[in-house]
């Protein structure tokens, strides 16, 4: 490890500009002649659109244009890019999703029209003057009821509000195991719906250059090339070579900025009509109403154990709320990103999972930090903890009894995953130490003396990240490849620009990627610049989500660096008058084996651009591009242990201790990784105790602002004890595993298991997330009654 290479805890170079207000976000972009868009949104969750009268609004000051759904008939509808085959062999039902509603609105907040005016205030004034004739319909909101008879029907193309029913596993075999099991643990619970709440709201600025016919879309996106691809191929807005998509600094995504939304489609289309740049920035209330939400499952789960506590089989039945339409990757979340993780860290023999994906009159639900895997970890780890309590076993011991042993890798699970490596028991032991498990009973007694209930909870999660390989993803329905690109460009003076197809919106790529390049090429870290987010600069890229940027994006960088070294070897061999085979590369120097004849990579770069004395037939320049398609997912795993104290008088829960031991393989930058763990746990704590997107029966979002939607604050989370137990992945050249989502995947179960443990003493058997003071207090009252 060099001082600023792989493994060094380098402070993030991008933070100075972020914390001093020098970042450049989409809303900071202003263009000459810029106009503003304001969307007319349905206040109703379910209604027919009987007419939209724009006459009065269109005559108002500053208004350039008003468009409704019918005006955009030439533009393809929003799509879902992951096809699922129903259990009956039919394709999933993906009803049309026009960017602006046509004929009917299906959730409160759905865009009905757009007003484009010279100022934002003028656009808002005119939007308020657009008269929409709605024919109110009853709404269906509760996913558990959506497919029941007599419910309002949302889409003609999806009878019974069912998008698809999908299953994984051998039901008959699993049922047979259950029939003969010594013990069966059964739970029913919801996985609460969440609002993503990136700090920067969604935003875009669309421009059209009539001279060149080129469109430019600046957008807060996690994957600008995916935006370009979909907007060209499916919406037909412009051919790819005439559409530039730029995602500048982006203030958080958590999944919500992966997707192709109505607003960017409308703006890109409209900019060429009004011949003016158009800006739209979501207000926070628009973010609540229109960002794709996360989670929202209703699940029945069962675990069969033998008399020794071995897990024999698992049976899971889940209803997943898709919202009103299938968002970009929505269908993958409760299927291939969920059921495939139900083996957890265990050798469970058989697993069967059935999933119904249903439509409701709520905003679409799609991937949100963890995407399917938090839901899976919650199912597995709640079941395991409940089984331990029911059978009188120590929850740590029960887990250890069932862990996939270290010598069993690669390990094939019953749910189509192959785990590459891991040390589950080692992480558990380390976590037990870090958590001070041995002292728990004493702390519990102390709490009890003070009138408080103390509980401890475990979460031995596993997740799959860096979705891959492309061919496998394609065979499961993915509409895209999931490789990544990197372009390393040496300049003649020896400094380096790395162009990556991943996108940093909080991950710290500008630092971590520069560390990889510095490490591999032996150039000073300060001389490496990381460039991302602009389709006119980057060859192509699939973006950043699913904790893929280190394992997939980082591996592409290594491949590109290898190409640079190979070309450099030729140049050095020529200059040093040696055979290529005799040239060794280390620490930035090409050396003739066994001699002190050497040439620095910066000198090689200079020679490549000033090729006066140069190998015959070799192209000038030192600029290499690599595309990397991963061999498999990477499987981060670990054990988190949470300790809570409950105030039974008020129902308040406080997290007293939180220990996390994670296996992320090789750490590129431990400081960034620890930050990712903290942030992920914070979001997991948010889901477990605080956050809840609540719709009322009419489909109105009740928790539609920070007055009612509880974001985690500093005083809601403890000081974490974080440890690592990295087992390098054999499947990528860096040995890394993704770390971005692990905290959010592990934490909900750890927290809720601790809450259940604390409340067990007062007879509470079950409590749902979020475990708010009201819910905890009510559960205690109900148990006492």
């Amino acid at each position, binding site marked *: 490890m060099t001082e600023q290479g792989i493994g060094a805890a380098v402070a993030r170079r991008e933070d100075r500009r972020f914390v001093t207000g020098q970042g450049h976000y989409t809303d900071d972009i202003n263009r000459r002649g810029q106009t503003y868009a304001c969307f007319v949104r349905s206040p109703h969750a379910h209604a027919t659109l009987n007419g939209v009268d724009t006459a009065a609004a269109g005559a108002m000051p500053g208004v350039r244009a008003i468009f409704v759904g019918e005006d955009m008939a030439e533009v393809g509808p929003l799509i879902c890019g992951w096809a699922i085959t129903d259990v009956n062999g039919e394709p999933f039902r993906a009803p049309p999703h026009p960017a602006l509603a046509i004929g009917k609105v299906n959730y409160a907040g759905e865009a009905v029209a757009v007003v484009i005016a010279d100022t934002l205030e003028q656009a*808002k*004034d005119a939007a308020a003057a657009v008269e929409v004739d709605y024919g109110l319909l009853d709404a269906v909101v509760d996913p558990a009821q959506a497919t029941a008879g007599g419910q309002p029907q949302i889409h003609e193309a999806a009878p019974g509000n069912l998008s698809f029913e999908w299953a994984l596993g051998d039901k008959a075999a699993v049922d047979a195991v259950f029939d003969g099991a010594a013990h069966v643990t059964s739970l029913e619970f919801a996985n609460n719906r969440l609002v993503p709440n990136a700090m920067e709201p969604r935003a875009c600025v669309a421009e059209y250059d009539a001279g060149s016919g080129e469109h430019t879309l600046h957008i807060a996106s996690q994957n600008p090339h995916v935006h370009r691809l979909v907007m060209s191929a499916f919406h037909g807005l412009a051919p790819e070579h005439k559409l530039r998509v730029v995602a500048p600094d982006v203030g958080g995504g958590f999944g919500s900025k992966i997707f192709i939304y109505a607003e960017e489609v409308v703006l890109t289309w409209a900019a060429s009509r009004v011949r003016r740049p158009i800006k739209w920035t979501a207000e926070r209330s628009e973010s609540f109403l229109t960002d794709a939400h996360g989670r929202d499952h209703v699940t029945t789960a069962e675990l069969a154990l033998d008399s020794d506590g071995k897990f024999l089989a698992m049976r899971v039945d889940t209803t997943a709320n898709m919202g009103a339409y299938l968002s970009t990757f929505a269908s993958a979340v409760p299927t291939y990103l969920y059921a495939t993780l139900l083996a957890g860290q265990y050798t469970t023999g058989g697993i069967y999972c059935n999933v119904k994906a249903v439509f409701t009159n709520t905003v679409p639900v799609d991937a949100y930090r963890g995407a399917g895997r938090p839901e899976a970890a919650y199912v597995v780890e709640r079941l395991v903890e409940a089984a331990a309590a029911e059978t009188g076993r120590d929850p740590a011991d029960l887990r250890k009894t069932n862990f996939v042993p270290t010598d069993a890798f690669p390990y094939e699970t019953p749910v189509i995953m192959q785990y590459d490596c891991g040390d589950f028991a080692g992480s558990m032991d380390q976590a037990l130490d870090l958590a001070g498990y041995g002292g728990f009973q004493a702390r519990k007694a102390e709490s009890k003396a003070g009138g408080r209930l103390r509980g401890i909870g475990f979460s031995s999660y596993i997740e799959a990240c860096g979705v891959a390989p492309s061919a496998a993803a394609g065979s499961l329905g993915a509409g895209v490849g999931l490789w990544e690109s990197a372009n390393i460009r040496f300049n003649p003076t020896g400094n380096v620009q790395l162009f990556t197809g991943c996108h940093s919106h909080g991950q710290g790529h500008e630092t971590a990627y520069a560390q990889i390049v510095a490490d591999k090429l032996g150039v000073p870290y300060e001389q490496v610049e990381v460039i991302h987010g602009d389709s006119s600069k980057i060859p192509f890229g699939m973006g950043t989500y699913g904790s893929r940027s280190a394992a997939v994006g980082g591996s592409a960088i290594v491949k590109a660096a290898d190409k640079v070294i190979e070309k450099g070897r030729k140049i050095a061999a020529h200059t040093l008058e040696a055979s290529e085979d005799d040239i060794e590369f280390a620490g930035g120097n090409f050396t003739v084996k066994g001699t002190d004849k050497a040439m620095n990579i910066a000198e090689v770069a200079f020679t490549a651009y000033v090729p006066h004395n140069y190998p015959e037939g070799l192209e000038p320049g030192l600029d290499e591009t690599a595309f990397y398609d991963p061999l498999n997912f990477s499987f981060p795993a670990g054990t988190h242990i949470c300790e809570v104290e409950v105030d039974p008088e008020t129902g308040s829960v406080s997290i007293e201790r939180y220990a996390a031991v994670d296996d992320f393989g090789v750490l590129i930058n431990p400081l960034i990784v620890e930050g990712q763990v903290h942030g992920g746990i914070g979001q997991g704590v948010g889901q477990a105790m*605080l956050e809840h997107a609540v719709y009322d029966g009419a489909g109105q979002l009740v928790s539609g602002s*920070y*007055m*009612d939607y509880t974001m985690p604050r500093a005083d809601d989370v403890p000081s974490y004890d974080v440890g690592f137990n990295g087992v390098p992945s054999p499947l990528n050249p860096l040995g890394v595993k993704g770390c971005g989502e692990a905290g959010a995947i592990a934490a909900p179960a750890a927290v809720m298991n601790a809450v259940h443990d604390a409340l067990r003493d007062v007879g509470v058997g079950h409590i749902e997330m979020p475990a708010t003071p009201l819910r905890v207090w009510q559960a205690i009252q109900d148990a006492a009654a």
Partner: protein
Amino acid sequence: MYNFEYKKAGSVDEAAGIVGADDEAKLLAGGMTYIPTLKQRLAAPTTVVDLNGVGGMDGISADGNGVTVGAMARHAAVAASAEVAAAIPALADLASHIGDPQVRNRGTIGGSIANNDPAADYPAALVGLGATVQTNKRTIAADDFFTGLFETALGQDEIVTAVSFPRAGKAAYMKFPNPASRYAIVGVFVAQAADGVRVAVTGAGPCVFRVAEMEAALAANWSADSVAGLGISADGLNEDIHASAEYRAHLVTVMAKRAVAKAG
């Protein structure tokens, strides 16, 4: 925001003149509620009369009788005031827990009580201490000032200029915050006030109210146990996704008990 006229008043009389002549004109103090309301286009005033230019409205002073806080005094100033801390520490403590640092540095006592949000903290202090509200026209006892949900005794051209808090014996405020907004789900101010024991509850109902039964019990025996067994009816209390009426009623007892314990 909708368009409106903005006038920065130089005096209370000037501000009162403007709002007296125009029912649709509105006063702006700290703006912690009103600016978001304007930004969300939930209000369309003709004129916003900014009181931040009126001098001499933000003073805090103490004498033998108690503490007088100027209407434009920021919550942070009350929280940090040595005079308040010496005379009525419970008042400084309450102010230190209003909102967040940004709110405390902008929000004013006058703005807060004139708005009379049912979950605001200050109404509990005013009623709990038996304070007197001074306006440009008269003085109003706190018991008479808060008249209902977002309603006060203030007339259209009446402007709060200061609040006088009499010294109290033991006093404390305990708040159970809404997890999201951090407003009070229930806040209880207990005091051995100048005119007897007072128990004032905010957050639980549509408007701050007193609990006579608890006051009598504490007058007889100032101890947490005195109120531990006393409950209030859930009838008419607020209900939302964070707290049922029953939960709020329960929390009134718990917070009252804890406030008495905190007061010593």
